[in-house]
């Protein structure tokens, strides 16, 4: 039989990837630091946590299943409006509002997934873009419900757990957002290291091979899409609850594009990439907020170009390559930038570069 050792070995390697690392513990500890070190910036920290959750939800779709979505903000907005409308209607309890928002977004995601799971490449990009634009337009026109361009007014939240009020200082906001983020992160982390996570990665790596293994790809994609929608909706609800407003900006293309940028900046398919990206992006935007908005967009564009050309696996990918010690690849560096594939395609399988026949 094999020379690799006992039968326990193969599982050991797979299981080792799911183990918590010291660096992760350090990260979450550092996440508590704003309470002590930046108490005047807690509102910003709360925004970062919310955006991180939103980016995490997209990472599940994009980084792990390889589904390019240009309209993910639709679910963020659905969650935000659901939570906002519930509070406006008189029920301001935060946690149940979160649940309702997640359910609403999840339902929308599940419905949309039937369309999304059936297309790929440009059609997929267009369908997700189209759905995002549709939802935005619908919200815009339905101002009797959403307040239209003026946004939703009259959102009043009750104290969290009966004790913690939402105020301008942001202690409750950040604590609340951070805990929700952490819980969601735990769930996603588990999912990613499970057989379902493996199936999603299979879909990303080679969507053609999956049916040849008997895998119901479309069904998997629908599940992933629905889960991602739930998480995005919860993030939107957090925003609505912590800021006590909801506007159309939660749904627009700019938000969909920004979360994509954040994810790519941090590194897709790496869980922490969404968190790191959110921190970098929002801190940078806060620092440059005094500037002319045109400058911001110019440098954002330049950053995107730079990231794609030079750091295709994002900040975390670049760091990983520097460290050059990733257990999953046995100490070898990740494949070269030109060949990186989030949406794997037959012609781009690395073997074809060494292909001796055509």
């Amino acid at each position, binding site marked *: 039989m094999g020379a690799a050792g006992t039968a326990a070995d193969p599982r050991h390697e797979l299981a080792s990837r799911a183990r918590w690392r010291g660096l992760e513990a350090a990260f979450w500890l550092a996440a508590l630091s704003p309470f002590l070190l930046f108490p005047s910036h807690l509102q910003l920290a709360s925004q970062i946590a919310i955006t991180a959750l939103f980016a995490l939800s997209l990472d599940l779709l994009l980084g792990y299943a390889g589904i390019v979505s240009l309209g993910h903000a639709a679910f963020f907005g659905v969650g935000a409006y659901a939570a906002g409308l519930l509070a406006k209607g008189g029920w301001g309890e935060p946690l149940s509002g979160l649940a309702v928002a997640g359910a609403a977004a999840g339902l929308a995601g599940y419905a949309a997934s039937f369309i999304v799971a059936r297309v790929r490449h440009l059609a997929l990009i267009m369908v997700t873009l189209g*759905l995002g634009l549709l939802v935005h337009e619908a919200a815009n026109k339905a101002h009797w419900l959403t307040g239209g361009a003026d946004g939703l007014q009259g959102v009043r939240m009750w104290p969290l757990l009966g004790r913690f009020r939402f105020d301008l200082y942001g202690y409750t906001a950040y604590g609340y957002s951070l805990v929700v983020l952490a819980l969601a992160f735990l769930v996603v982390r588990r999912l990613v290291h499970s057989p379902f996570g493996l199936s999603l990665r299979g879909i990303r790596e080679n969507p053609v091979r999956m049916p040849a293994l008997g895998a119901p790809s479309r069904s998997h994609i629908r599940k992933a899409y629905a889960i991602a929608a739930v998480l995005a909706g919860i993030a939107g609800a957090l925003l609505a609850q912590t800021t006590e407003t909801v506007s159309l900006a939660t749904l627009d293309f700019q938000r969909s594009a920004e979360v994509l940028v954040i994810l790519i900046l941090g590194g897709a398919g790496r869980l922490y990439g969404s968190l790191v990206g959110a921190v970098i992006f929002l801190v940078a935007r806060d620092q440059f907020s005094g500037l002319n908005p045109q400058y911001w967009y110019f440098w954002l564009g330049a950053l995107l170009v730079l990231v794609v050309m030079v750091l295709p696996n994002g900040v975390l990918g670049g760091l990983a390559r520097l460290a050059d010690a990733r257990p999953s690849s046995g100490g070898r560096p990740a494949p070269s930038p030109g060949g990186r594939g989030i949406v794997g395609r037959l012609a781009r399988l690395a073997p074809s570069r060494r292909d001796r026949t055509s």
Partner: protein
Amino acid sequence: MLVPVVGVLFDGFAYGMLLFLLSVGLSVTLGMMNFVNLAHCSFAMLGGYVMITLTQTLGWPFLAALPAAFAAAAAASVLLERALYRRLYRASDLDQCLLTIGIVFMSVAAAAYVYGTTQQPIETPPYLRGAVTWLGLRLGVYRLFLIATALAITLVLVLALEYTRFGAQVRAAVDNQRMARGLGIDVDRRFAITFALGSGLAGLGGALAIEMVGLDPVFAFTYLVYVLIVVSVGGLGSIGGSFAAATLLGVSDVAGKYYVPELGAFLIYLVMVGLLMWRPAGLFGRR
């Protein structure tokens, strides 16, 4: 009430022709190399601003500035292709999307910085203003000019594709890139030329668009959505498909705004998603 219907059809067709000019380049280059160039409308915008500068600031005649707009956009695309795009031909859809979105952001910011954020006024020459009356219908002269130009270009494109060697090679590359390379066709060079032509046409479209729909820095975004709709609905690499889809979209948009303004763009997006569900490769697409 026939007259409003015909008027709507006419305006819609003219708008469709504009969309066709803006989209045809993207459709062919997407079909050839599968390169998702979301910055396509930035070239259109460039053509528009070049037009403005030439006619308003430098006093060029309108008809002389149009080819200049074409050339400027084509030149810019050559530069961009050499510097950046060429490295990403085999990259993923996502990488291409992100790179080109980044370029759009930069172009929009640059345009706002240089020209300001307001709509640009343009003075069309007197012979293109006003309307003619034909069979009791008032047809705008500019729109007639636009339609005529677009149809002429369509004819040239179709003839070139069908009857020239270059056209045959382009068709081969769209059909089956690997095979075309195997036959010795330098697909990369054909692509570079096609890309320049397509971007030039977009620039021309942008220049022509000013009078009809205006020009401001967010043009690159606003019309990107329409162009993407035309391309995905019409099918990649298909001139006929782009023509049909552009016409359909142009007429639907104008008709929608005239008859059901409350719905806004909602209808367009819904129709697009529906069409893509039914035919993911577009109406005339092959894949």
